């Protein structure tokens, strides 16, 4: 029963979502609406599960005095701080001037932005140390990157300003993006899509069951 019911749920829900595309009328339109609404709520709970699990692990780390358990305290305190503020301020918690917005603007934004922006340094370092034209394919990759990087900023056209408009770097970058790049991207897109379609079909038909995990 621990596997049969989930398999049944997966199959029915999957089939309904396929059928409602072809028959957008009763009962499939209604079922589509219910399932979409439920999906929204279940997804919210799934993210809550992740958050609560983070807290559980943090408390375990604190309780067992694991390495860096002090940072686990910081995680819990930060979580509680923004949560208490968010719940206390009610539905309009995101209005400008609220404490929640202050936390968003001056703590969440600098932290998240800096965390992602730091990658710029590593991209540059890797370009210097590892990006080598070792063979024809790598040279093609490098040349495409070169022309796109120069052509997508104004300096590219400054450097080729002596050439006719159609041959300037911005035009070349536009051509690369719209034709060979699009062709390669499309091949990847179709390949991935066919993979998704076949995997989806296997899941709906119950052939693919790995998402249910082990056990009975």
């Amino acid at each position, binding site marked *: 029963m*621990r596997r049969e019911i989930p398999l049944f*749920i*997966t199959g029915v829900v999957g089939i309904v*979502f396929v059928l409602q595309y072809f028959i957008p009328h009763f009962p499939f339109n209604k079922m589509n609406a219910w399932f979409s*609404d*439920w999906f929204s*709520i*279940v997804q919210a*709970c799934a993210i*809550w*599960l*992740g958050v609560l699990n*983070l807290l559980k692990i943090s408390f375990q780390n604190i309780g067992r005095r694991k390495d860096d358990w002090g*940072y*686990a305290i910081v*995680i819990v*305190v930060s*979580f509680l701080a*923004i*949560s208490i503020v*968010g719940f206390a301020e009610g*539905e309009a918690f995101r209005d400008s001037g609220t404490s929640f917005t*202050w936390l*968003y*603007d*001056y*703590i969440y934004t*600098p*932290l998240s*932005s800096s965390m992602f922006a*730091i990658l*710029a340094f590593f*991209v540059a370092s890797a370009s210097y140390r590892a990006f080598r034209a070792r063979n024809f*394919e790598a040279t*093609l*990759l490098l040349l*495409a*990157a070169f022309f*796109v990087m120069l052509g*997508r*900023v104004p300096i590219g056209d400054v450097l080729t300003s002596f050439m006719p408009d159609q041959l300037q770097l911005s035009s070349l970058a536009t051509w690369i993006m*719209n*034709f*060979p*790049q*699009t*062709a*390669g991207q*499309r*091949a990847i897109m*179709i*390949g991935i*899509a066919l993979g*998704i379609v076949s*995997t*989806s079909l296997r*899941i*709906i038909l119950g052939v693919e069951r790995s998402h*249910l995990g082990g*056990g009975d």
Partner: protein
Amino acid sequence: MEHIALWVAAFLTLGIYSFLYKDNPWYKLCEAIFVGISAGYWFVTLFWDNIYGKFWLGVFPDTTTNATGEIVYVSTPDYWLIVGAVLGFLMLLRLVPKIGWISRWPLAFIVGATAGFYLINYFSSNVMAQVQDTIMPLFGVGYNASVYDIIGNVVIAVGTFTGLIYFFFSKEHKGAFGGAARVGIFFLMITFGAAFGYTVMSRMSLLIGRMDFIFGDWLGLIG
């Protein structure tokens, strides 16, 4: 308050960048705050927008007084949402090891819905629409394409077709088939190169944003 806010933001920004020197307690502190604040942010937002906004108000809508003085719901209660809430609750039971297996039901629902939805979406938008746009008259509909367009159409058709051949692993890449696969690799390399160029562009933009904060908003050095 504005001064404190700017210094807090600067302290956290520089704390993250201190990792460029080496891993250190300042960075770890900022990282832990980031994890906690992010988790709390999602927790609160999902509560107000979904658990309360969608589920609670959907099942128990607010009331108002109508023109005749009657107390009425502002919208029709949707009791079907309770099923979604039950599934969501079952998902949370994952945290209780003894009955954690029951979370497979909502998980099965999520997987089934996604599989059914993606099967159609990807086939229609990422296969059919793309194939339709690739298999088209090289000289344009109505034979009115410019030389630029004709070359472009050839590049698109050849690039997509050979790229797909490269992804076809059921036949050994030898002879004409292998040659086509090799042309496919060339197109894929150009694609990855362009993607790399755009990735650099993106990462640099994010850094520009942070540097603008440090030298502009915080230190006020930019004239």
